[in-house]
């Protein structure tokens, strides 16, 4: 782990104690402004923004380590959206809003627009319907990522309608966004067209899932070691240890694949069909890891208090945001076929 990742690991551990995350989820409360200010004050929102704009200008390979730390500590996902999609998109377009986002003064968020749930017309006007977006409190800007375009819009635009959603992943500030006749402030290529900004954000979200899966794995092994049944620890039951082995294999595969994606992005030689594959596999494997973790834990794993559901809600929500397992698999198949 890099020095920076270790620093964030320690800081997020202190700033985001697990019981408080549970309480926020129960009460559907956002992160307190004080905690958010501490995190943005450490430079979180500028991770991927260029140094001349006050960012840290990190390479994707460095960013993904931090995203795994975020996933492990359940950092509100909107902070990844601001840092990895909104800020780099504004930077790419030379937009004046960038400094405010990097400094944490302008809040925002992001959402993913699947094929068919939103379009740009020939005149560059945006129309989307009922897209889920995660927003930090007081958000003024939102980035929308579609396979073929990436847009930043103002939430104050009269064509935008926001409704608070009763979403599975609670306390993430999820809203549904509809927009008609909205002109984006920023328009960039989508990831399927090779757009690096959107791809970097997606790599970050996949790394977040790796971090979460790693945490769940640790909890599961430690539970299986300590929990006794029939007078012996769960680790003496092969049915249980083989679940753990499958989880570990999935985790290592996710880690290898996301690291390779980051490596290829930093080399400038990544390929959208590769990313399309990972948009199916990484969430699907994270989900398998989490579902097995719940099983390994037995009843305690199903309690609110133990909190595996916070990871599960996050995984299911990200998987569903991207279109779900079937759609992302078909999308990967199409990308593969098109790449010839």
């Amino acid at each position: 782990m890099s020095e920076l990742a270790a620093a964030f690991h320690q800081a997020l551990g202190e700033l985001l104690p697990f019981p408080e995350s549970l309480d926020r989820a129960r009460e559907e409360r956002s992160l307190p402004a004080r905690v958010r200010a501490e995190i943005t004050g450490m430079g979180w929102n500028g991770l991927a923004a260029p140094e001349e704009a006050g960012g840290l200008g990190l390479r994707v390979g460095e960013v993904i380590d931090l995203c795994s730390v975020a996933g492990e500590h359940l950092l509100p996902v909107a902070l990844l959206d601001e840092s990895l999609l909104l800020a780099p998109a504004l930077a790419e377009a030379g937009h004046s809003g960038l400094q405010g986002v990097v400094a944490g003064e302008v809040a925002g968020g992001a959402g993913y627009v699947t094929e068919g749930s939103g379009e740009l017309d020939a005149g560059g006007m945006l129309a989307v319907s009922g897209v889920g977006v995660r927003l930090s409190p007081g958000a003024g800007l939102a980035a929308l990522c579609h396979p073929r375009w990436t847009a930043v819009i103002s939430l104050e635009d009269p064509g935008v309608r926001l409704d608070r959603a009763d979403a599975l992943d609670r306390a993430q500030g999820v809203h549904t966004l509809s927009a008609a006749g909205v002109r984006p402030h920023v328009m960039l290529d989508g990831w399927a067209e090779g757009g690096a900004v959107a791809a970097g954000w997606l790599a970050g979200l996949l790394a977040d899932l790796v971090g979460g899966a790693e945490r769940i794995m640790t909890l599961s092994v430690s539970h299986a070691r300590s929990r006794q049944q029939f007078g012996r620890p769960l680790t003496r039951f092969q049915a249980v240890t083989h679940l753990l082995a499958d989880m570990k294999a999935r985790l290592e595969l996710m880690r290898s694949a996301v690291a390779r994606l980051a490596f290829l992005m930093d080399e400038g030689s990544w390929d959208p069909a590769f990313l399309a594959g990972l948009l199916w596999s990484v969430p699907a494997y994270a989900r398998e890891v989490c579902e097995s973790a719940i099983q390994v834990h037995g009843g305690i794993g199903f309690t609110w208090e133990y909190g595996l559901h916070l990871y599960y809600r996050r995984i299911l929500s990200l998987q569903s945001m991207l279109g779900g397992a079937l759609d992302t698999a078909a999308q990967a198949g199409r990308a593969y076929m098109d790449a010839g």
Partner: protein
Amino acid sequence: MGPAEEDLRTELRAWIADHDPGPPPAEYGERIEALTRWQAALCEAGFMGLSWPVHCGGRGMSLAAEAVLAEELARSGAAELINRLALYTWGPTLMDLGEPSQLERFLPGMLDASELWCQGFSEPDAGSDLAGVRTRAEVDGDEVVVTGQKVWTSRAELSTWNALLVRTDGEPGQHAGLTLLITNMKSDGITIRPLPQMLGEPHFSEVFFDEVRVPVANVLGGINEGWRVSMKAMGYERGIFVLERSIRLRRRLSELAGRVRASGGADRAALAGIGRIHASLEMLTAQAYRTLAHQQAGTLLPGATSVDKLYLAEVYQDLFSTAAEILGPEVTLADDGWTHDLLESRSVSIYSGTSEIQKNIIVGRLLGIR
């Protein structure tokens, strides 16, 4: 990949374009002969032992060069290296643990495929549990005398050398007392009885040893050091091997996509199937590259390659059962390779350590659960 590897890629691509023998014959015996000639030609051209030190007959390049070789071979008609077990498992093990005279004797025939290698580990009562080896060997002067039986020995009848695990001391069930003997398969006292596989091919055999005399000079790593030698070899077994298999599977996926395109395109279920396999192969390749990088750096954790092997079996089986679904009922009405590979895929979760054993290794070595 660095510049040296990219230069190698250019060199290989040009050479293969001029020398590609095309797909090997379907008939088993002819196929083996064609593959042996192919490896000899590759060796002659300087492409075998890329990662081996120069003084061992190699080119002293990184393991990444072997990855380039595997990738470029996959573009040819004949992706398979007949003496792969020697090149990627026993050659490296020999270079780690062998005497200089052994390197001199055995390495050249590994490279040019003039001496094929097989591996004698499994026995009727020692499959996944290697410590169960009962084939006995006793030192008699400057020879070791072997009596016992091995089973599932791949390509036994074609091989010159067998990396044979025998018991020189102790009782079945103990790791101690095992010895690795490089045994000439043409020795007196060896009987090979082929066991036709479900594919109908005589790929593996039972091998019987009746007072077979092997020179003590052919002991690898020392008498009673066989467990350590075997573990070393198994660490090598899965690095390049998984990458090579994954590349072969990529080729099959691309053929499947071609068939789907030719038949007028894919519906959503077929696209999802192809997408899943594509993604899995990318995961497998990423994992194999990571393993190679760790092998190169000497930082590979014991047991780590079990993830690669476990997942290889999963993807292998998923690919051919998905292909059969996508291609439809006609797939069982023609012998065009898909059903062959569907049957063959069931062996992948059994050979070189079953999937269940890989899970036990992951639990024990990677998760530290005893």
